[in-house]
């Protein structure tokens, strides 16, 4: 038995152990679950050290051409502060690192986020109804504009949802339900896709190791 076949068998047995939870909780499922969590954590630690800490920090702190770059001690200490969260007396130091991360992230993404997810979307909604040509474009553009306006009306709580406002809010909630339905449909497709992927592995990679070819 070579390593590839051993890997396929391990993968297949662990997959079946995890799927056994669909019948009921059992020791095989527990074993596979704990193994997955433990190995994932171990893998991440090693991967992070090898691919993040060493090339991005250590190799800059102590370059191969010799000498030491003390400025790289600063990110080292900031990283160490994050770990100090587990020491109650020193945990407040982690706020320095977190402040830097949050500040940098907010500064970089605040404008970009507003531009990408708000301004560009508003701009995309302000369209000439006949834009695109043809009855389909007309209908699509009317649905987009009506849907956005009515959806916003549904979330306008300073006026009672009665009369025309109430009818617009009803259209808004209907549009929202259609959107949620589309999301649910896509979610179902995603979960079935994962099942299909794993079934393909079991049928076309695992079974052939036992001489069963479908």
């Amino acid at each position: 038995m070579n390593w590839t076949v051993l890997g396929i068998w391990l993968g297949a047995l662990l997959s079946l152990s995890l799927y056994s939870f669909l019948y009921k909780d059992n020791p095989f499922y527990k074993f596979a679950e704990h193994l997955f969590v433990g190995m994932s954590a171990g893998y991440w630690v090693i991967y992070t050290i090898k691919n993040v800490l060493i090339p991005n920090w250590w190799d800059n702190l102590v370059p191969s051409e010799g000498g030491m770059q003390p400025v790289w001690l600063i990110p080292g200490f900031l990283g160490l502060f994050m770990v100090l969260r587990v020491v109650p007396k020193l945990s407040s130091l982690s706020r320095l690192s977190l402040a830097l991360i949050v500040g940098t992230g907010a500064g970089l993404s605040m404008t970009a986020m507003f531009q990408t997810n708000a301004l560009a979307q508003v701009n995309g909604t302000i369209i000439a109804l006949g834009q695109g040509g043809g009855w389909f474009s007309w209908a699509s553009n009317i649905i987009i504009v009506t849907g956005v306006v009515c959806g916003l009306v549904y979330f306008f709580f300073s006026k009672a949802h009665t009369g025309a406002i109430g009818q617009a809010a009803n259209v808004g909630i209907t549009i929202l339900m259609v959107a949620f339905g589309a999301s649910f449909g896509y979610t179902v497709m995603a979960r079935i896709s994962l099942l299909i992927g794993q079934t393909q592995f079991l049928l076309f990679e695992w079974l052939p190791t036992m001489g069963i070819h479908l």
Partner: protein
Amino acid sequence: MATFVEKLGDIDRRIIFIVMALAVIIPLSVRMSLPIPISAGPSLDMYNAVDALPAGSKVLLSFDYDPSTMPELQPMAIALAQQLMTKDIKIVSMALWPMGVSLGNEALISVSDSLGREEYVDWVNLGYKTGGGVLIVRLGSDIKSVFPVDYDGNPVDDMPIMDGVNKLGDFDMIISLSAGDPGVPAWVMMAGDRYNIPIGGGCTAVSAPQFYPYLGTGQMVGLLGGLKGAADYETMVRVGVENAPAGTATPGMAAQSVAHLGIMLFIILGNISYLVAKKRKGGVK
């Protein structure tokens, strides 16, 4: 006393699991095939956008996923690499997710070997860097300071494919295969809108509805959503190609369709059962 229809509402969930398992296993086992019609939509837009690139163009392909979403995204990676390399478009790849590096390598090597392409000339894998959106901003000004060496530790300055590639603006298109964050939104936000670079993408079906607004506004040139998007692309890429390797998404679509029919059947039965029970108790007039 509950009728048969009402009892259907209390069907044991394990029976549903068995039916769903059979709905997937049987079509795959008998290699059931259903036609995949390609009509106007984000998959075709994506194909046309890549197809419109002239030979010699440079595309940044970012593998922002891990093995948990392989069934949906790996077929897209292979089909995209197939189209790009067939058209002699140079691929500079990288990953915002650590495991994306090896998955991307797997796809690129398999297609490169089948088409006789050369690493460092026709494609290169720069590897993974942490940082997400912050990293993309840095790539916007200087790629080689972020990736001085590739995945294997070779200096990028020595690679023919990296000639003239110094910043994101030097690419003709960026394509992100994304399983979440960081992924498509970060590329649209930090690269597409900021540097005006065409962004294409593929994503899991779960996140596809979230990205559709980017298509309507032109912030993305195309989008492959889930297994259906992957099957669409496999189908389009294989048109007119002799001995094209069979993908995994296209055969999976028959199983997907049968499973969806099963789910729809259970939803309809559940609702009928609910309405019958409610009517019997006088809830529905």
